[in-house]
């Protein structure tokens, strides 16, 4: 089943790989064992064998990886995201108190939140918030501001054209691209179905 090529690739690890597969089978006897069909050509057989071996190692890796603290992360993201959104709401209500319409107050709030995100990035605080907040600090508009300002700061040393100009949207680029695509699609749906 093993051709010499694959054996050479494992070098001194060959026995370990075999033992890993045995161990994995013992630990998960209920799982169906993948067999290699004999009608495959040698290259395909090698590829499949390699996949089986790699899965055995990945199984071992999973047992030794620290568990991701999903609950803690979710709660922190909820709290951080919630605080940012509450702050936005307070600002919006404040401006509505001056008699601005909902739309006008919203626009002003966006300005202020983007400024705050950018400002905290410049002070080197937003990345520390992001470390704990995760998605809670990435998804609000402050996170968008963070991604642009962080890129601007990072690439300023390569000059304003090839640095800041070219790479400003290094991180935020995909958000814009897919944001535009989705908005075009929704626009088309709106056009045809109303």
């Amino acid at each position, binding site marked *: 089943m093993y051709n010499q090529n694959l054996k050479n690739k494992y*070098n001194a690890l060959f026995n370990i790989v075999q033992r890993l597969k045995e161990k994995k089978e013992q630990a998960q006897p209920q799982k169906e064992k993948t067999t290699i069909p004999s009608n495959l050509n040698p290259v395909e057989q090698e590829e499949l064998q390699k996949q089986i071996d790699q899965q055995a190692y990945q199984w071992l890796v999973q047992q030794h990886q*620290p568990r991701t603290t999903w609950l803690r992360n979710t709660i922190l993201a909820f709290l951080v995201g919630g605080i940012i959104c509450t702050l936005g709401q307070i600002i919006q209500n404040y401006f509505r108190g001056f008699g601005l319409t909902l739309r006008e107050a919203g626009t002003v709030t966006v300005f202020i939140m983007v400024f705050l995100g950018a400002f905290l990035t410049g002070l080197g605080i937003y990345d520390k918030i992001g470390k704990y907040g995760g998605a809670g600090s990435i998804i609000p508009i402050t996170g968008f501001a963070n991604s642009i300002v962080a890129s601007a700061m990072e690439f300023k040393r390569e000059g304003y054209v090839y640095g800041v100009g070219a790479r400003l949207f290094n991180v935020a680029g995909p958000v814009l691209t897919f944001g535009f695509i989705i908005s075009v699609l929704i626009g088309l749906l709106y056009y045809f179905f109303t």
Partner: protein
Amino acid sequence: MQQPIKKIGKQTLQFMQPPVVLSFASIVGPMEGKGPYGSAFDYILEDTLFGEKSWEKAESKMLRETIKMTLQKANLTAPDVDFMLAGDLLNQIVAANFAAREITIPFLGLYGACSTMAESIGLGSILIDGGFAHRVIAGVSSHHHTAERQFRFPTEQGVHRPLWSQWTVTGSGGILLAREGNGPVITHLTVGQVVDLGIKDSNDMGAAMAPAAVDTLIRHFQDLNRQSLDYDLILTGDLGTVGLKLTWELLKMEGYRVENNLKDCGVLLYHPEQDTHAGGSGCGCSAVMLCGPILRRVVEGAYRRVLFVGTGALLSPTTVYQGESVPSIAHAVVIEYIPPG
């Protein structure tokens, strides 16, 4: 007259005239300076810019200063040294190239990802034992911010790092090898083979590199007919907590007993409270630990025989985005010292 072949077994070289470590030096960043081995480094940077305008410049300066310091410690100057072998993590190994521009020693640039320290010591020893040089200086560097911006995100970007990710070390180490002199000697080199067991997560470098480390270790033990307990210390480069546990597991599967003598630079370098998650990584990680606390202890006589295994994950952001797994390599060098008297 033909020279005898100095290769033993499949991958190991035995040096007939073991090169001597004349001097070594290390510079680390502020965070590494606050770690448990802070006092064992020669110089701790006050900030990560080191008085320069960019982090790349700072990294290059750090390497340059480390090399100078290594020479100074041996009371030598650049013309006394035949070759300089250096490398780092940046594209086109610019930190090393630009350091070599200032230091006028014939230069060979190396890239072995985080294994470059072991690679450069090994190649330097080959040059000396082969009779091609009197003295060779080897140095590597890495910088947290330059690596971060090249391999991952802008540094001010607020991202949540997974618990198995590692922290690129800011630091550089240099080591001066010579044909004659007093000091620890490099007796063997085991050149690693690239190994890939299909880890695709570029944050999970420890898991990607563990098989490479184990492969090189087993070959080394087999080639020299030695056991893991023949070494006072087996020092791996930057496997981190996850990779170290996996290495332990895999070695046990092959029947090798490792006890407290298996240690990893990435795990040693920081306090757990420093929140690096799985530990340090990068060229500088193994370099500063070796050229700082470990060689100091070797000279003091605390370790008589050390197996230094530099481990490297040979990835680039492009290969990661193209869905490739992370190939890894490990090179091992044996450092021995019997203190006089």
